[in-house]
């Protein structure tokens, strides 16, 4: 019988996901027990930082597998943007020391594949952090034809010229390249009435980079 990688992989990933969930819960228990003991907080934060990253990486693997699957269709549904965004903001504020502000209505909801948007947001924030930004501003714009975008601005050094003129991001190149590639793939999976999602990057006139995640 032919070796069925897909079945095997998804079975393994399912197990890993369950273990990951158990690990996250164990950490939360530990944090709860030790919440009044300040001397342990840095250790807990450290463990959290790594496990969150691991969790994120796992999600990324799942999404990559998902996108590369022939029969892939995104699970677009209505979500509240802040429900998706807040945990990621929380993670980057707490564990990576970024200052993130947003001007998003708490009831703003949109149609997207939540897992893919998490990947896109996570990579956007991670890119900003790695390039040296300290502060991020997130906002949303809605348009009358129904499309909308998430605008992420940072106070880092901005994109290099070469990157700005690239239309399609490839897996080759820098770490940022991979991040942008994933963001792009995540957005392109979103479709509506014949239009497709996209990513737009630019540099701010004064300082920093701006990434726009555009939903059709």
């Amino acid at each position, binding site marked *: 019988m032919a070796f069925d990688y897909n079945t095997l992989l998804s079975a393994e990933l*399912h197990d890993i996901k*369950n273990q990951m969930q158990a690990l996250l*819960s*164990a950490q939360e228990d530990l944090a709860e027990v030790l919440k009044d003991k300040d001397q342990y907080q840095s250790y807990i934060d450290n463990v959290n930082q790594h496990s969150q990253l691991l*969790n994120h990486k796992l999600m990324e693997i799942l999404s990559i597998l998902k996108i590369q699957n022939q029969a892939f269709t995104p699970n677009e549904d*209505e979500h509240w943007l802040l*429900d998706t965004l807040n*945990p990621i903001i929380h993670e980057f504020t707490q564990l990576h020391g970024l200052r993130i502000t947003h001007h998003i209505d708490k009831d703003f909801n949109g149609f997207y594949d939540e*897992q893919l948007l998490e990947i896109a947001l996570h990579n956007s924030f991670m890119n900003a952090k790695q390039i040296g930004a300290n502060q991020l501003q997130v906002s949303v714009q809605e348009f009358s034809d129904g499309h909308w975008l998430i605008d992420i601005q940072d106070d880092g050094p901005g994109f290099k010229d070469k990157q700005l003129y690239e239309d399609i991001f490839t897996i080759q190149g820098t770490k940022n390249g991979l991040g942008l590639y994933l963001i792009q793939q995540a957005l392109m999976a979103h479709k509506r009435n014949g239009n497709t999602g996209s990513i737009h990057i630019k540099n701010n006139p004064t300082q920093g980079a701006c990434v726009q995640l555009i939903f059709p």
Partner: protein
Amino acid sequence: MSQLDAILGKMRILAIDDLVESRSAMKKMLMILGADKVDIAMDGDEASEFIFNNNYDLIISDYNLGRGRDGQQILEEARFTRQIKATCTFVMLTGENAMDMVMGAIEYEPDDYVTKPFTIDVMRQRLTRILNVKEQLRGINESIDRQERRKVLPLCDALIEKQPRLKLRIERIKGRSLMALKEFKEALNLYQNILKEREVNWALLGKATCLFHLEELNAAEKVLEHTIREHPKYVQCYDLLCKIHLKHKKLQNAQNTLLRAAKVSPKQVLRQMELGRIAYANKDFAVAESAFKMSVKLARHSCYRSVKNYLFFAKSLQHKITPQNNKDSRAGSQEALKAVDEAKILYKDNIDYVFEATIIESTTYSNLGKEADAKAVAEKAESMLMEVNDPSGAMQLSMVNVFMATNQHAKAQDLLGTLGTRKDLSRAETRELNRTKSEISEVVVREYTTEINDQAIGFFERGQLTQAIELFDKATAYKEAGHTVVVNAIQAKIAFMDQREPTRAMAKEVDELMSRLGSLPESDERYDRWLQLRKSQERIKRSL
């Protein structure tokens, strides 16, 4: 998040997960978030038990629950049987693979779903949101709980006005209410407007469902095929497509469609039952067998448990049961008998069901070539049929078939006679009746009448004329009864009238039997007796 604390603290909560660590982790997580009363269940059966006995405000279930039913089925059953209220919040925890099935559920969608793995942060955020939304929908849901669908519509419109951000969610409820009220044109309108904005999968299915009810089958089929191309795992679409094939009388297409759906989502009982029925009608017994096997297993502890599953499963196994003692046959007969037993125990108070199970049991033995067992069981069925007050044509037909299989053709003939006078047979039953009639062998009936004849002679010789006549009547009721039987019957009746007193009725019976015999040739060994009896007949007639 003190607000969530306060809300959860007042709630009765059920958490369902098959993995022990996940279960206790979930409970702890809920407690940290402020919950106070949390029950935990490990599978569908336990969950059903809890849901039946309690009134939950919030249920959080993993979609994937191992071998038994999945989270979506628990939700469907609980909502279908109204064991949880519309105001109860149901949150599904799901992996990627199940999303289409969960999101697209047109009737019983969860209020929210959270993708695993998630952190407490995510859970806090989601619960706060969904409980808040659910609170805004409370008025609507309470109307639904009171089954006041009419009142739901204006409430929906008013809330959309007030909370435009909840428009889609409310429209989903509104569409469902319109369909429940059978206002399909209006519902279709609603779905089409939603689809103008965006191809939401449940609106596509909603549109197709409306078209189906409005008898626009081709249009409905087109929408479904498009939806399935875009969402190949959206199994509810296959169910509706199957109904369309059935309406077009394309049974094979219907079966194939359901097979595809069952492959994506094998645990849905109603679908497996439907697949089994269609495959059985198509005489595709292998498919029917596996579908009914699955139905039996899945429905065993659910509200969908049905005697039909057990019986059809046992019936669909018959194709592999033969007198050759091979592996398939042994396994098949064991499974069939087990299913029959289980049905008999579960439905012991319903004689119709027990009868049907007994019929299948006898058939199983017949197919195995165990004639004695088959006949013994057939006798049980026979006496049960006599106990039934008003047996259906179908029951009598099954009994006829078992009589035939156990070589009791004369009894079969008897019952066929009764069936022939029934006016309530369906077309299929009449076809079956005619087919069976032609199968009955005249020779076998004659053998039977001879058997009765022998018994009757015994009574006659002991002078018990009444009993003898009764049996001769029974024997001569068959048109196949031989001349000897008829001559004997005449003799018994004449002897009776000679000993007691002649009656017109009995004399008439003798006349009828005589004309049935016609005239016997001199060469016939019964010729002398016949002549003698004709003289007696004349004598009695004169005396009357």
